[in-house]
């Protein structure tokens, strides 16, 4: 980030940066400090005024001792990995097909991007209808045998539903980046290898995937982070299953928000939030190191 020619002024950059600086201080850092503070302390009893009681790691101990928390963690992990894998796989197959640049593939590309424009709650509402047990697309299986498919009743079905929602929405985003990545692979490489007699599968495995690896890795980390802690996961769960049935889709993001608001357990929610922030930091660190390196190679 070094420019050879720069201006000299001490007050102008401060003035220019000030609006953004104030906004992030007010809406990011002050709340983050509160979260930190709450995670290590308790509200004074009976909501009385006065200093918060410092309790060290007690809030964390309480959270980690809760079996439901660990269930939520494993649900989130399952959700994140399955949704990410499904979305990336479909997007990759479509991107490879479009990248063959057959006649009309531009039209396909035009439509494949659409899901990214749709808000997660809208996706949730639409798929809730499409996969509703009593009407919509899938309801017909319930006429063969009752309750063959019922996300309102079976936890596993509800989980499948939110995975489909997330994966579908993110196909658009993954597709955009994968086609951009594939386009930057020199055509001559693919041509040369096909002259040597390689088929499309061999070319995909030996040329396209390795050269696309940086993009794929970036998308993998991003998709995992988004599905784990992203707003989309919250929006989808809130409009489809609301964490149910029987907490089978009570993923971590949804749990934190609902616990903080309905359960009023600020300290517990704050402790859980800190755990998530730590996880995001790990993800971002991996990503940033890697992105920096890629920029370096250019």
């Amino acid at each position, binding site marked *: *980030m070094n*420019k*050879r*020619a*720069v*201006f000299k*002024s*001490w007050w*102008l*950059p*401060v003035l*220019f*940066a000030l*609006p*953004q*600086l104030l*906004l992030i*201080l*007010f*809406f990011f850092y002050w*709340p*983050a400090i*509160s*979260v930190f503070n709450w995670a290590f302390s308790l509200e004074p009893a009976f909501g009385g005024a006065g200093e918060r009681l410092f309790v060290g790691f007690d809030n964390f101990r309480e959270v980690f001792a809760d079996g439901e928390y660990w269930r939520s963690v494993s649900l989130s992990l399952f959700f994140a990995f399955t949704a990410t894998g499904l979305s990336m796989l*479909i997007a990759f197959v*479509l991107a490879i*097909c479009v990248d*063959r640049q*057959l006649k009309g593939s531009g039209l396909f590309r*035009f*439509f*494949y*991007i*659409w*899901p*990214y424009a*749709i808000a997660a*709650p*809208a996706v949730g*509402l*639409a798929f809730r*209808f*499409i996969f509703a047990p*009593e*009407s*919509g697309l899938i309801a017909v299986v*319930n006429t063969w045998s009752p309750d063959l498919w019922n996300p309102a009743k079976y936890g596993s079905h509800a989980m499948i539903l939110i995975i489909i929602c997330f994966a579908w929405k993110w196909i658009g985003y993954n597709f955009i*980046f994968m086609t951009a990545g594939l386009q930057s692979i020199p055509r001559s490489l693919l*041509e040369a290898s096909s002259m040597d007699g390689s088929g499309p599968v061999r070319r995909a495995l030996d040329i396209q995937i390795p050269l696309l690896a940086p993009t794929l890795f970036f998308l993998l980390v991003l998709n995992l982070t988004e599905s784990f*802690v*992203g*707003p989309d996961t919250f*929006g989808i769960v809130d409009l489809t299953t609301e964490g149910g049935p029987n907490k089978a889709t009570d993923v971590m993001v949804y749990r*934190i*928000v609902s616990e*903080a*608001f309905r359960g009023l357990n*600020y300290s517990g929610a704050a402790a859980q939030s800190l755990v998530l*922030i730590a996880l995001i930091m790990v993800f971002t660190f991996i990503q940033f190191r890697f992105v920096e390196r890629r*920029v370096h190679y250019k």
Partner: protein
Amino acid sequence: MIERTPILNAFTYLIMILGLILILGPFWMIFTASTQSLQEVTAVPFNMTPGGDFLKNVHAAWDRANLGPALLNSLITSLLVMVGKIVLAALSAFAIVYFKSPLRHVFFWMVFMTLMLPLEVRVIPTYNIASDVFEPVRWIIQTITGIELSLQWNLLNSYSGLVLPLIATATGTFLYRQFYMTLPDELAEAAKMDGARPLRFFIDILLPLSRTNMLALATIMFVYAWNQYLWPKLMTTDASYQTAMVAMRALVPSVNSLPEWNVSMAGALIIMLPPLVVVAVLQRWFVRGLVSTEK
């Protein structure tokens, strides 16, 4: 196209068409459901041909979710976020890239760190600060000087509350930083040689050059702001400030009432249309914006 293989081409088309069905199928179902009557929409198996009740359903959804004001709120919020973010990003990235101050690294990292603090993990405190923006200011003044101020500014149920926390995000700043970095150094050198002050350089050279960048950022910020859900849901307790995305909650058929999915889908269709139009019509800019923010 690399080799002439009719079978492979046919196979590629087959997969692309399946993909198209996967992507457009849900859109088609939302559309057909929104045109059917209650009886048609609850028919099993689902009938994939449109009916004739579209306007009736839209009307019902419009009333049920109070869509008139909600769509207007969404539009105002999204446009404000869009403009605010562009201005803020252009300014702060300028400060980071074109000045050699030791503080710029601190500032850059502070902006970068916000990426790790998504709203979901700081919901309650962010809500608290929105209900009382000057709390930290009061606290700081009180600890330093001992004077207790009664300064208050409540953002709940207001456009500033909907917009300001969304403008604070890092995306745009990075997009602009990336853009400034790609500009040749000679530009600034020549401008300095001609005696241009930083402000003149910014207004006369950087801003005109960044027009495409602005458009790209505008598209992604519009879609981003329109599709916000958690924040507007939390902070608008007053129905007159509800955005469309929050109003959609009212369209979910409840357990004890008729499964009026036709009305739900009609409402959902209207609510998701604006960002869809932006992405479809301005796709080139949207894709460019997305791909370059993440670099």
